[in-house]
């Protein structure tokens, strides 16, 4: 049975809403397949607006991986803004895909990529508009299987009631394995119905089906245990790790938006994973080990990606791009290859390291040197030791001196506020650091028009990190420290005008904290907040703190737990954490020891990077059967030239 496009119903609404082009599809490289010629159909949902969701690498990769398969169809769907949501409800138009405007409810699977917990309420809007029951338990064989993935699904417990299945880790192979099981289930007459399919997914040990696990609580509110409630379901679920990134060179030809989006570039992941060991960083913990893409594959992807998209900018993505074993060769060779071509190259530069500046110089050979970004994260040396961000003030001053001397006018510094053990002085130390940065820049260049921007946000403890046990800093304390820092920066006569200050207030972080480390009881809070109108919680103009606190007090009334219990309470070693049955490969005892090392009274202990020092036994490789995959390969791209800085070594 074919499925009708909702476009004829949607079209008359488009002149009445903002930026209608985001809903019309038809982009270069988008794929529309015949419905009837496919037997497994995925709707891929990014739970934010098109302008944010379109550039998302996860969706772009899976869209291509799935559509390359014969008999498989994948279309994209994004959150609709409230102006269209209102009209869709009035006119009874269901959540639709932008590719062929098919109703999401007609697909076999609805795959969702969560980058942030603040997208959870947008899941509910999409399910509701799609006429899919919000609760997994209420869905029938007629509804799509709702599968979540992405970093913010590594603790899916707060949204467990709304999901049928969850995939931890890399999605490329996982979506194909799920596709094969769904195909088999459909071909053999849907044995066991919906539960039969979910059981076959759960039995692999690689797909988490929340409904097949029961959570028991202690009288004080803590979890007693989480255990499977039927045979054939494993006690814990493993994350997926893609090995050999060269065998998976996606996205090859990502969709080129007509509408304006947040990143207008062709992005290539040059490696996945990070073992720098920053204790706050969930991404670095859950994506281990490091797996590099070779310089040759990167070169080929850039070449064909630009040809396929026409993008004028290439982004070399990873969690810490300067750490690629052949980053110098990649930067120099690509810069050579594209010299004079008006193709720009960019590297998200986050490491405080003069070498990073040299790379940025190389990549911006023809361009304007406007701004460079570094992330010291902590203002004082002591704070940076606590978070294992091993950067000294001397490193930072050397780095910014190099940057200003080679023509960069603006340096942006990222920090966090509310880190474990933080005091007012640790945050005020950021002001001193910024003053020293400007002083060094003025001295190095002899100019007064150099600038530095301090950008700071509230820290949220995340699951699967050493800080998963930490008490989140109350937003009132965060806000007081941020105000004091702002005042200190503004009060400075000699440097104040050269220092910009950007901060986010602490209250959204508290809700992010609730959603990050919550358990299944938090689902009630999410549902209540959504019913009260929560949408697009990642957007300041839509987020309402009181809506969330009201929802939390109502939904948790009568429970021994509340918003503070989930956020500002420190956990101890023995407490069962809501995500303990979800295996990211990290050894729980290793995480605990690292947490203890962070807050050791006589100063924090340091953990090195296992790429260059012996394995420190985080547990991932043996648990997951994986290995570090790094170069150098010794290969070069055409148009080679060595960077002089390398002669002096890194």
């Amino acid at each position: 049975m074919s499925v009708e496009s909702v476009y004829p119903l949607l079209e008359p609404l488009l002149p009445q809403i903002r930026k209608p082009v985001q809903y019309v599809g038809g982009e270069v490289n988008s794929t529309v397949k015949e419905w009837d010629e496919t037997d497994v159909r995925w709707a891929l949902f990014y739970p934010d607006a098109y302008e944010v969701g379109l550039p998302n690498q996860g969706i772009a990769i899976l869209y291509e991986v799935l559509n390359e398969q014969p008999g498989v169809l994948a279309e994209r769907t994004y959150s609709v803004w409230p102006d269209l949501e209102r009209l869709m409800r009035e006119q009874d138009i269901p959540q639709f895909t932008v590719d062929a405007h098919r109703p999401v409810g007609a697909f076999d699977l609805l795959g969702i990529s969560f980058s942030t917990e603040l997208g959870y309420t947008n899941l509910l809007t999409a399910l509701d508009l799609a006429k899919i029951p919000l609760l997994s338990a209420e869905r029938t064989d007629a509804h799509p299987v709702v599968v979540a993935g992405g970093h913010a699904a590594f603790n899916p417990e707060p949204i467990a009631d709304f999901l049928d299945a969850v995939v931890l880790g890399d999605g490329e192979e996982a979506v194909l394995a799920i596709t094969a099981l769904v195909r088999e289930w459909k071909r053999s007459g849907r044995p066991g119905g919906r539960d039969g399919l979910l059981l076959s997914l759960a039995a692999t040990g690689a797909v988490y089906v929340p409904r097949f696990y029961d959570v028991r609580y202690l009288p004080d509110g803590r979890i007693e245990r989480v255990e499977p409630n039927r045979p054939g379901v494993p006690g814990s679920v493993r994350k997926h790790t893609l090995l050999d990134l060269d065998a998976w060179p996606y996205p090859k030809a990502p969709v080129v938006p007509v509408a304006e989006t947040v990143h207008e570039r062709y992005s290539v992941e040059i490696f996945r994973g990070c073992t720098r060991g920053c204790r706050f960083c969930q991404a670095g913990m859950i994506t281990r080990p490091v797996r590099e893409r070779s310089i040759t594959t990167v070169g080929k992807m850039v070449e064909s990606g630009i040809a396929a998209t026409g993008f004028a900018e290439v982004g070399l993505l990873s969690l810490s791009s300067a750490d690629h074993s052949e980053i110098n060769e990649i930067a120099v060779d690509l810069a050579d290859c594209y010299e004079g071509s008006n193709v720009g190259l960019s590297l998200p530069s986050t490491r405080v390291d003069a070498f990073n500046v040299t790379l940025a110089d190389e990549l911006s050979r023809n361009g304007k040197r406007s701004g460079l970004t570094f992330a010291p994260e902590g203002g004082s040396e002591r704070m940076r030791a606590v978070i294992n961000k091993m950067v000294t003030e001397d490193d930072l001053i050397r780095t910014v001196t190099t940057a200003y001397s080679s023509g960069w006018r603006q340096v942006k510094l990222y920090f966090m506020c509310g880190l474990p053990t933080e005091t007012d002085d640790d945050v005020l130390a950021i002001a001193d650091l910024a003053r020293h940065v400007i002083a060094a820049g003025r001295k190095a260049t002899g100019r007064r028009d150099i600038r530095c921007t301090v950008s700071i946000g509230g820290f949220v403890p995340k699951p699967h990190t050493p800080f998963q046990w930490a008490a989140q800093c109350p937003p009132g304390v965060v806000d007081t420290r941020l105000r004091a820092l702002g005042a200190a920066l503004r009060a400075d006569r000699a440097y104040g005008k050269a220092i910009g200050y950007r901060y986010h207030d602490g209250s959204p972080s508290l809700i992010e904290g609730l959603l990050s480390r919550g358990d299944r009881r938090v689902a009630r809070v999410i549902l209540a907040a959504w019913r009260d109108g929560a949408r697009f919680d990642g957007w300041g103009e839509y987020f309402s703190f009181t809506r969330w606190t009201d929802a939390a007090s109502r939904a948790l009334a009568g429970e021994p737990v509340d918003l503070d219990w989930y956020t500002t309470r420190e956990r101890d070693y023995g407490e069962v954490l809501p995500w303990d049955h979800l295996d990211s490969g990290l050894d729980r005892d290793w995480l605990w020891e690292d947490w203890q090392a962070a807050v050791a009274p006589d100063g924090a202990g340091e953990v090195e990077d296992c790429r260059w020092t012996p394995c420190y036994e985080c547990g991932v490789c043996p648990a997951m059967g994986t290995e570090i995959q790094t170069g150098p390969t010794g290969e070069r791209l055409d148009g080679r030239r060595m960077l002089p800085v390398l002669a002096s070594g890194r």
Partner: protein
Amino acid sequence: MSKPAPRGAAPPPAVQHLLIRYAKRGKMRFASHLDVARAFERGVRRAGLPVAYSAGFTPHPKISYAGGAPTGVASEAEYLSLALTSRNEAGVVRERLNAALPDGIDVIAVTEDAGGLPASRLTASEWQVILPGLTPDSVAPVVRKFLALEHAPVERLTSKGLRRMDARSAVVTLDVHGLEDDSAGDDNAVGHGADHDAGTALRMVVRHTAPAVRPDDVLAALREVSDVIPTAPPLMTRLAQGSLGESGVVAL
């Protein structure tokens, strides 16, 4: 410290100037001017055309656009000029661009023309407005009354605030056609997938003014005359753009 300057040789000079007429059709009528410009910049790169770039730190492709049809309004007569650093056959440029652009942003004609797109070359447009469900007989008296007016002041909220304009003085001609009427539009102009089995087409020649009077402004003025004209946004299409001649718009 020396002032940073772009490295490398100056960009190659333009040797060929092309004038491109293109359409904004179907779903792509919802693209804004900026959306269309981005699509062309990517399109010329995907097409592998040797587009000329400006010099300086942030080189821009030498493409200039005439004032585009508003977001949501279709067009068969949008113009841009494109400078290339090597000579290319116009037909080949058209083919390669059409293969590289999203469907609905369609190149209609490519001609060699170094005249650029000064306002003096594009002084008027012919627009078509489809009013489904209305008979020509019901619309004709409204149009007659409008044409008899000396002034028809209308207001429109723009991103720059509330703009006032005289919709009547900008209108050169305004005709009413039945939709079955052959003259009411070629396939391209009407082919938007909507069902137009009964209705009226307005054809109007409107002078380019500042602030611009758009077909929806004329419609707003018609609505002032009579509430026969519906408030729902109709399908609007620019059919031609050029200079104002004796018998209407002389296409560029």
